[in-house]
């Protein structure tokens, strides 16, 4: 990607399809020095994370508590990055035209999902067997979560990568047709003989719709498995039917947030101001506002039922996760995931800016991170998961040096993966932009210019 362009860039709405293709290809070809400097720093941080992971591995899998932050960073990347594809999938399903410039930005997170799959692997050894305790798996063979969670996660990753790849096929062919030498050869292989025939377009559109539907179902299913197997079932007495759904809502909220932040970075550092405009920020900010409210609703439904129920088991869970042990992370996450973003986004003047939604999204991402620590680190600090209810709450697990290495390394690895994926796939979906231009006209209605959108089936 190129460095920031200081000259004002024309809106894509005023560009021709040819100009869009040329502009995106030009930006995709060269990446510039700052890109590789940042990538280098991230690679160093990622290496430090590997050191942290090796330290953890050398300590063995017996001490669950030591793995709490690793589990948290895995869950965080799962929640944020692997839900991010839903931004593109859902907006494509409802045929929102304003999605076009941001579709690839969100789909590119599929590559991060592949990275996260590797973070899951050591956790499988830490996860206790399910016999003698509450779990999703009842009396299924002892290693059920180990097998099925891996399969679910694997399917999710494959489906995500398939969406990224298939949705990029026409663009890969465009790169092929506009390049020479080795680059052309590479993209020829990647483009799988795409010629843009009517049949190919039909297969692509149908394929994306089907894959999108599958991804959504896999994602909801995996949210259920990860949230219950790696958090809820490890805390005795925590029976919360809404938690998998709340976990998914947290994912959708973070998905919108991470897309907004990525869009802001692409505008700021990569000269995408002409593509990622106020329409995209405004549209996503409305979604983020709705998801903040949903976050509160799901949290409230859970908390309120527990608070009202007041059984000893429920009280001990509330004390651990909200009112005593993890009180500070709870209040922080509540403020950052709901109160502050809601207070910001409820104003249209804030929503209809670039900085407003970005600020709210950044706050949401921090809030989600603290929330995940509250759930997962607390769950991994429980020694005996076979009890009926939590009798003595363990102390709060504050991060040590190695935990910080693991967290920073994990997050750096995720960002680095995303950056490297932008070297393969153009970050703006050229064909969707061209299609968008084809389907819209500007007409004069009364005395104003108004956009007319075609609605083909």
């Amino acid at each position, binding site marked *: 990607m190129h460095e920031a362009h200081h000259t004002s860039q024309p809106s894509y709405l005023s560009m021709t399809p040819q100009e869009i293709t040329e502009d995106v290809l030009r930006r995709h070809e060269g990446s510039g020095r700052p890109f590789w400097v940042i990538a280098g720093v991230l690679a160093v941080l990622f290496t430090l994370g590997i050191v942290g992971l090796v330290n953890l591995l050398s300590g063995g899998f017996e001490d669950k508590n030591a793995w709490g932050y690793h589990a948290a960073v895995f869950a965080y990347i799962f929640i944020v990055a692997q839900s991010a594809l839903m931004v593109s999938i859902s907006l494509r399903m409802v045929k929102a035209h304003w999605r076009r410039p941001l579709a690839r930005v969100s789909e590119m997170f599929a590559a991060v999902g592949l990275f996260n799959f590797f973070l899951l692997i050591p956790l499988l050894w830490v996860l206790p067997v399910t016999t003698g305790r*509450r779990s*999703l798996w*009842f009396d299924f063979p002892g290693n059920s979560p180990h097998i099925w969670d891996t399969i679910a996660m694997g399917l999710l990753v494959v489906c995500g990568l398939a969406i990224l790849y298939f949705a990029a096929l026409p663009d890969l062919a465009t790169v092929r047709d506009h390049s020479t030498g080795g680059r052309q050869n590479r993209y020829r292989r990647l483009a799988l003989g795409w010629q843009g025939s009517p049949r190919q377009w039909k297969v692509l559109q149908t394929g994306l719709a089907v894959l999108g539907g599958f991804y959504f179902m896999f994602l*909801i299913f995996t949210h*259920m498995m990860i949230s219950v197997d790696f958090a809820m079932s490890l805390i005795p007495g925590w*029976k*919360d*039917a*809404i*938690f*998998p*759904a709340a976990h998914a809502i947290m994912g959708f909220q973070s998905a919108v947030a991470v897309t907004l932040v990525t869009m802001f970075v692409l505008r700021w550092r990569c000269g995408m101001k002409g593509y990622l405009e106020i329409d995209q920020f405004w549209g996503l900010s409305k979604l983020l506002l709705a998801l903040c*409210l949903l976050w509160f*609703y*799901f949290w409230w*439904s*859970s908390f*309120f*039922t*527990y608070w*009202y*129920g007041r*059984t000893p088991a429920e009280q001990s869970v509330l004390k651990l996760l909200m009112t005593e042990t993890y009180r500070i992370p709870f209040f922080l996450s509540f403020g950052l995931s709901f109160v502050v973003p809601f207070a910001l986004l409820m104003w249209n003047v804030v929503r209809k800016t670039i900085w407003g939604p970005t600020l709210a999204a950044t706050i949401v991402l921090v809030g989600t991170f603290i929330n995940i620590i509250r759930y997962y680190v607390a769950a991994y600090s429980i020694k005996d998961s076979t009890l009926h209810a939590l009798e003595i709450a363990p102390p709060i697990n504050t991060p040590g040096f190695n935990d910080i290495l693991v967290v920073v390394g994990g997050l750096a690895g995720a960002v680095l993966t995303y950056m490297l994926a932008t070297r393969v796939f153009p970050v703006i979906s050229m064909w969707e932009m061209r299609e968008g231009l*084809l*389907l*819209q*006209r500007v*007409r004069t*209605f009364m005395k104003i210019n*108004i*956009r*007319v*959108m*075609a*609605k*083909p*089936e």
Partner: protein
Amino acid sequence: MQERVKLSDAQINRDLLRSIFETPKWYLILVGTLGLIVLCGFAAAGFMINQGLGVTGLNRPVMWGFFITNFVFWIGISHAGVMLSAILRLVQAEWRRPATRAAEVLTVFSLMTAMMMPLIHAGRPWRVFYWVFPYDWARGVYPNVRSALVWDPAAVFTYLTSSILFVYIALVPDIAVARDRSTGWRHVLYSVLALGWRGSVRQWKLQIIAGILLSAIILPIFVSVHSIVSWDFGMAMSVEGWHSTVFAPYFVIGAVHSGVSAVVTVMLILRWMFKWEDYIRLEHIEALAKLLIVVATAWFYFFLLEFFFGLYSLEGPEIALREMQVFQEPWKWLFIVFLFTGYIIPVSMWMFRSVRRSIGLMIFTTVLVNIGMWLERFIIIVPGLARKQSFSFTWGGYTPSPVEIVIIGATFAMVSMLVLLFAKVFPLIPIGDAKEGMVLADEITIGKVKVPAVMREE
């Protein structure tokens, strides 16, 4: 939109006001028949009040039966109004236009009907006023302000008030159209209700802003109503299967499922009765069917969560309750019917475009959904109560009496009758919205094809 027909303003006025100014014979027969059923319902309720609750099938420990099931059901139906009107208005879905008024009206009438059910259930309805006025919680025998049962009327009345306001604000321009074309008492009535509407730019601006603001304000009320209804159950610790954290969203999404289905049923019947084929088009029904697939699947997900986490606790009584619901007579038959009619049959059928565009099959499937959703509430309420006590010798069963069946049947007749009476006084398809849709409709030529297009609302 694909199948729209270009209609003039005069044609729209004529078509949509026909139901007001013309009274076909079938209308009188239908309303009369429904009125008779409603009267039977009132007579049955009067009989019950006179004789006492002994004439119902309610008995310890099952003290909530058909009436409370029906209360939850009608509250659920009322959720269609906001779902279709407020949410689709906020997201500017073009295909919402013909459906909004019917959905809003259904909301108001189903809420009124729902509110009658606890009064009838009380056996001696006048006593409700003793409980509430003067409100005295000091002696402990009066309703507890901390109880979900007390929050319930507050939420439902707030929803009813705001829904009436919502319907009325959207109706004002249409009432003015009716005013300008009526004479006699109708003209006087419409003149008063139209609040001096002249269609000035300022009036339209205020009307649009009011619609958007009310849509946004009514959304939290919409969510709160069924959440609180769900907490009537969720906060009851002593009944197995009720104390679940997922109940609030599960009830809300279930309400949307049954409510939107009911709106589709009503729209299709009205389309046939009043010959509104140019307004309620197949593309609208198809869009609603697609929405229903999403809503139904979301509801099914919450149902699975609710059911599954009942078993997750590995507690004997909870597992026994689930066994009873799924494997024991007669509950297993009700459970199978509920599952097939509430989700499996309709959603499988809606996957096919031919079904989504078939009037008969859409009426069939949406009615099935509401059979299933009624049973769902019944299966949640009664089996849990039947085994409420810890000792098995205190367990009981429940068989509804004819009195209850007549009253429940009458509520369906009452809502249908009220919708028909409303259609006699006010247009059931928003005239202003239909005209706006015509203005915003356009066409774009791409290559050799003319593609339907729409001006983007900002």
